């Protein structure tokens, strides 16, 4: 059996966690993996706490939802508070937006803060692309998909008029992830 990773993005509805999950899932397909993805839907996705789940595996996936996340990416405090209770017992990694989330102290869980919203506002002049900064950083930290697959996934999934800023955000995020921390 190959590796199976369960990733959950969470945040406020409107922060773009669904798009981040979809882009990651599509990138994993480009990498030759099996992927299942599911999102919050309806009213949940428009305010409140939104989530996007991606299961990536070397083999066909039996159960397509996240049972417990190996990687949790949190963009808001309320979503963090909900989903931190559901991370894997062993080896879970939490990546959070350091402006939006005050992490709680947890034993055995590695938690990494990324200045995604801060960078989006000050460096990219668009708060909307914090999700792409976060996605880029998360992929740099976890190497869950190939960098090039991720970039082409953004190019194929984002409307043309937003493409450049999203790709830039992803690359800035990737750099942040590489600089910030790289656990081996």
């Amino acid at each position, binding site marked *: 059996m190959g590796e199976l990773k369960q990733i959950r993005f969470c945040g406020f509805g409107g922060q773009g966690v669904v798009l981040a999950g979809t882009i990651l899932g599509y990138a994993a*397909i480009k990498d030759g993996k*099996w*992927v299942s993805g599911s999102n919050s*839907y309806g009213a949940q996705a428009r305010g409140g706490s939104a989530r996007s789940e991606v299961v990536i595996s070397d083999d066909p996936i039996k159960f397509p939802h996240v049972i417990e996340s190996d990687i949790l990416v949190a963009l808001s405090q309320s979503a963090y508070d909900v989903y931190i209770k559901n991370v894997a017992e062993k080896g879970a990694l939490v990546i959070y937006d350091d402006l939006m989330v005050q992490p709680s102290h947890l034993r055995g869980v590695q938690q990494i803060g990324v200045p995604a919203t801060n960078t989006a506002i000050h460096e990219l002049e668009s708060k909307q692309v914090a999700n792409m900064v976060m996605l880029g950083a998360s992929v740099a930290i976890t190497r869950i998909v190939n960098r090039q697959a991720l970039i082409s996934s953004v190019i194929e999934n984002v409307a043309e008029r937003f493409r450049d800023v999203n790709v830039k955000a992803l690359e800035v995020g990737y750099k942040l992830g590489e600089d910030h921390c790289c656990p081996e």
Partner: protein
Amino acid sequence: MTRRKIDSTLSPGFYYFSGNEAVAEGAIAAGCRYYAGYPITPSSETMERISIRFKDVDGVFIQMEDEIASICSVIGAVWAGAKAMTVTSGPGFSLMQEGIGYAALTETPLVIVDIQRAGPGTGQATRVASGDLMQAKWGSHGDYQTIALSPWSVQEMYDQTIDAFNLAEKYRVPVFLMGEEAIGHLRERMEVKPTVDIFDRAKKPGAPPFGTNQDDGIPPMPAFGEGERLLVTGSTHNEFGIRKTDDPEVHANLVTRINNKILKHRESIIKTEPYYLDDAEIIVVAYGFTARSSLFAVDRLRKEGKKVGLLRLKTIWPFADGIIHQIGRVAKKLFVPEMNRGQVRGEIMKYVACEVIPYNQTNGDIIHPHEIMKQVRSLL
């Protein structure tokens, strides 16, 4: 009926579609070129994608005023020669039942996709259920047979939509793809192969389009505009479509034939998938999304050395009575988890003598693998 191999409408390769998008692509691949529908959560993404993609294949898309008009429009298009589909969810499926009965009696091949949501009534539009299975069997009045499929993945939303069109064409019958919200909105890797096997309705100029008194098979089907005299009526009719509303023999023969043409071919229509059945003492019988949870659960329980198996139903109607009867003879107990109040469990009980344990969940959520593991452990 003729069979042919055609090139796929999408480039071969891997895609990351939602189940609802996969239905649209499956329909296009199968040759569907007419769509009439009314949008409804949680199925609307199919309609949206069809409305965009039909431009590439010269299809005709129309948003009707409601689901009654949608099914009637689809029936009309099929008799004009098209392969046609409509997609809906429970409340729309309810409205379509009159048209479905008409399609069954007129032997109109068409595909209806029902992305099931929590009912009855308007229920919970964004939440999952599989409560429409008996409606797919008994929704319209009178005695008729249909075919209902139950996909468990995005790949099968694509593959079974193609199958649905092929079965409809083969047997001249309405075919239902009984999807569920959780599959409609799931995104997964989906493979498009280079070619697709397609079946087309049989043509035999001059032959009666509604069978004969003797025949138990599937009559050829002309279309309007092909030069034949063609009458299509929802009243009882003879082999040429002429109304016979007071003739007991014609009615009995017609009703018997439209039932038998499915029942006599049941062995080639029914599809199931066995997992770990050989020495299983408890067999989980599941379908749709719940079969994904069940496979995960059964796999885990096997790793613990528990003698548990899974029979997955890929088709719901006609019912897989033969294999259910067989597993009922070898297993100690059957366990049937369902996102309804036991619709398939009741059907299973007609064919087995062993205990059939239900697990019914109607809270608008999927049945979690851990719940299945817990329940099955308590039976061991």
